[in-house]
């Protein structure tokens, strides 16, 4: 594909990667170890002061490629071929001491989870200036001055005293910014950002994104920005490299990739949020009614306060809000796991017993759940047949042939064949695991499925598949969904009615068309404006127009 080498290796290039090949040794149980090629034939350049976005789904080799800029292979990964030239010098030819002089001085790294990447035993300030001091780039006084400057640029609260705090004393969004400050401190020529905003709340994400962008512009550092979210990368980079299975798919300017993608895969990524459905006109046939529910823990902390909402039969209610807003607690109250302190939950016209213990089997059967982390929600030592078959035995007393027959049907419904019957969860991909979890919920023939962020741990294209499946199943079985999410794009795609939650209270509730159209309250406004859109310049526009700061500040 000749268009892949968009630019000839230029003389002004800061980093130039040619014919990169990365391998790892895998140890399948019971077989001899074998060498797996993770990345092959990757070429790209980063110019001084420019930002390159690496994009792809998990397993595409984004982080692995990003780390080659520091000549680092994570967990037994080996860079076996090609060259990585920084200012003309091939990093792969350097010895141990030589590469140490590059890391933390010329090239710095910002990890996805700053919470894990900061050492819990030391103060933030010390960690931020450590590399600068150890490489002898600045004196302690100069480094501290620069750290203070960076804390200011990144919009951290109380920049003068911020460095005296320990990692556990600040929020996730602040840690991510502190990590950026740590990377910028030694005045590096290149920074590798590895999904720096993925682990953050959607409203915090754009603040951190804006802070990173501002800091990059302010310090003229070049950067590689790794993410799976094309909309995010569109806000911050100059060029984009699309990767899949460790190979290049498309390489071009942001404008070309977003507006005129050449490859099918890139087109799919750009149009990933294509699912949309009209909301139901008639929302009167109530299945679930939550009436004035207040719930909390025995220490008196109220997680939910006076929440009232309802969900019609065969429809989808989306519950949105950032983490800590009480979304999942609402689901726990409905299932009876957390009995409400006040208020009632009625199902199909009858009030449900408050606690799980008081509920009959039939009542339990009609409400099922799907979780965010499918792999922790199923027993790793049971086969798919047993996982899906368990509710069949439990609720319907099915055994033997009948049970297997029904499991087959369910596997068909979730678009997986009977070949999966005897697989273990570990042998399934993330999307397949979530599908099995859906089948397990469906097996009980429920009237309501509570979906707790079932797609937020998945890659965009896989998530899209799960959403489509859920909609198809709703058409087939008339099941209702309460869909908990922090992603407004999903709400737009699948909801009939929407409930917006903020700090345990219901801020806004009604049919989707009403909730998502103005006039907005301040929080809904913030939430709606926090979802990155596939549009260049969107970030600046939003920061100008929104009315409320996110909770992460």
């Amino acid at each position: 594909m000749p268009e892949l080498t968009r630019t000839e290796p230029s003389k002004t290039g800061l980093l130039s990667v040619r014919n990169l090949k990365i391998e790892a040794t895998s140890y399948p149980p019971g077989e001899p170890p074998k060498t797996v090629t993770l990345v092959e034939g990757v070429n790209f350049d980063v110019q001084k002061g420019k930002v390159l976005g690496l994009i792809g789904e998990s397993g595409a080799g984004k982080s692995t490629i990003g780390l080659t800029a520091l000549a680092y292979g994570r967990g037994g990964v080996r860079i076996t071929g090609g060259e990585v030239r920084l200012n003309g010098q091939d990093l792969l030819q350097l010895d141990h001491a030589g590469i140490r002089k590059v890391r933390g001085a010329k090239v710095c790294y910002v990890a996805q989870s700053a919470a894990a990447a900061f050492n819990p035993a030391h103060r933030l300030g010390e960690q931020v200036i450590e590399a600068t001091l150890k490489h002898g780039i600045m004196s302690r006084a100069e480094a501290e001055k620069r750290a203070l400057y960076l804390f200011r640029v990144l919009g951290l609260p109380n920049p003068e005293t911020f460095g005296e705090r320990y990692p556990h004393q600040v929020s996730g969004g602040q840690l991510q910014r502190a990590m950026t400050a740590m990377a910028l401190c030694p005045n590096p020529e290149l920074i590798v950002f590895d999904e720096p905003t993925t682990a953050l709340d959607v409203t915090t994400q754009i603040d951190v994104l804006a802070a990173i962008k501002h800091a990059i512009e302010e310090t003229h550092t070049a950067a590689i920005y790794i993410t799976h979210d094309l909309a995010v990368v569109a806000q911050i980079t100059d060029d984009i490299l699309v990767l899949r299975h460790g190979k290049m798919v498309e390489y071009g300017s942001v404008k070309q990739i977003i507006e005129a993608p050449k490859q099918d895969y890139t087109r799919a990524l750009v149009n990933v949020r294509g699912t949309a459905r009209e909301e139901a006109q008639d929302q009167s046939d109530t299945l679930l009614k939550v009436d004035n529910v207040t719930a909390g823990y025995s220490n008196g902390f109220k997680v939910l306060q006076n929440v009232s909402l309802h969900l019609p039969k065969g429809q989808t209610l989306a519950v949105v809000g950032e983490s800590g807003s009480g979304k999942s607690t609402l689901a726990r109250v409905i299932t009876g796991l957390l009995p409400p302190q006040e208020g009632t939950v009625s199902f199909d016209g009858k009030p449900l017993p408050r606690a799980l213990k008081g509920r009959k089997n039939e009542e339990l059967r009609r409400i099922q759940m799907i979780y965010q982390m499918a792999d922790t929600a199923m027993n790793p030592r049971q086969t798919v047949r047993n996982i899906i078959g368990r509710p069949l035995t439990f609720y319907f007393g099915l055994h033997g042939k009948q049970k297997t027959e029904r499991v087959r049907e369910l596997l068909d419904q979730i678009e997986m064949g009977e070949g999966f019957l005897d697989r273990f969860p570990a042998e399934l991909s993330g999307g397949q695991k979530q599908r099995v979890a859906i089948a397990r919920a469906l097996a009980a023939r429920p009237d309501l499925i509570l979906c707790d962020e079932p797609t937020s741990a998945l890659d965009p294209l896989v998530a899209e598949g799960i959403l489509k499946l859920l909609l198809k199943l709703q058409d087939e079985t008339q099941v209702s969904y309460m869909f908990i999410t922090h992603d407004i794009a999903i709400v737009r795609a699948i909801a009939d009615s929407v409930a917006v939650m903020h700090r345990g209270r219901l801020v806004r509730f009604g049919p989707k068309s009403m909730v998502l159209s103005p006039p907005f309250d301040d929080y809904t406004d913030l939430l709606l404006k926090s979802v990155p859109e596939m549009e260049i310049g969107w970030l600046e526009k939003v920061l100008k127009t929104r009315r409320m700061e996110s909770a992460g500040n």
Partner: protein
Amino acid sequence: MTGGGSTRDPAATMAGVAGSDPQLSLAAGTDASTGNQSLNTATSNDQGALSPWGKFVRKSPLAALILQRLALSVGLLFAVSIMIFGGVEALPGDFATTYLGQSATPQAVANIRKDLGLDQPATTRYFQWLGGALQGDFGNSWASRNSVGEQIGRRLGNSLFLAFFAAIISIPLAIGLGMLAVQFRDRMVDKVINVISLAAISLPEFFVGYLLILFFAVQMGVATFPATVYDSMGLTERLSAIALPTATLVLVVLAHMMRMTRAAILNVMSSAYVETAELKGLSGLRIIARHAAPNAVAPVINVVALNLAYLVVGVVVVEVVFVYPGMGQYMVDAVTVRDMPVVQACGLIFAAFYIFLNMVADILAIVANPRLRHPR
């Protein structure tokens, strides 16, 4: 054996050693994470109306936790004293009958019982004993009529002498070998260290003791046996006398500490912040000393303290094998003649050591946790 926790449960130890996760093995012994839990409950319970204690917990959770540990230890010791006394009461056999042997007429037995105060109710005797013990007076031995406190003083010194040398050899050796095993992880050195230490921990200490005696004292004749020490002995003589029992103790406690050190450091070395340190271009030494060590300290302290406690308390068998005049042998002798004041005093002292060392480990682990040292 009295003294509550003085036997080491090999199953628990092995479970702890086998897991590479230090949290898992912590659960087998003293546990820093329970400290966090009790802190949480303490804070959350007081969220409504803050009692003075609640305010104190808020302000300095560290001091509150340490106070909590201290109070808990005192309570525990008290409970142990009841258990020791009750256990000794429940022992079959009677001192008077054993003491008099053939000449045990009912009248003579009753006289001796009256003489020793055994005709009084158990609760009265318990409080008399506890009151004395609190003032450091453990009463007189029934058999020798000597003061128990004086006897124990000398014997405890001997036991501590033995335990001290076992500790100063085994702890640095264990931590050093642990680090070596990390450095050469999954290679030959690591495997050899693992196999040898596992073999040492799997053999019971009396067996290890007899093996050492067989080879070094009997066949090669380079070591002294029995390991009896006298007041008149000089330091070098003493050291040569305790060489074999010390070696036995070292072999027994080494593996546990070594494997825990290895697991704790490996766990920390695979953490994201060590990778961060590496990507900062820091030297290997600085990464281990500044970024890994502070976070591996807590589990290592715990296992070291546990083994120290074992060294002091678990010497009973080793002392008997080597005929070493320490606390353990004193206690075993006392049990055979039903000399209850001695048994009780030894039990209480062993328990106090055990509880004290575990408390120190707990407190050190709490202090090593920055989350508790610097609350939000």
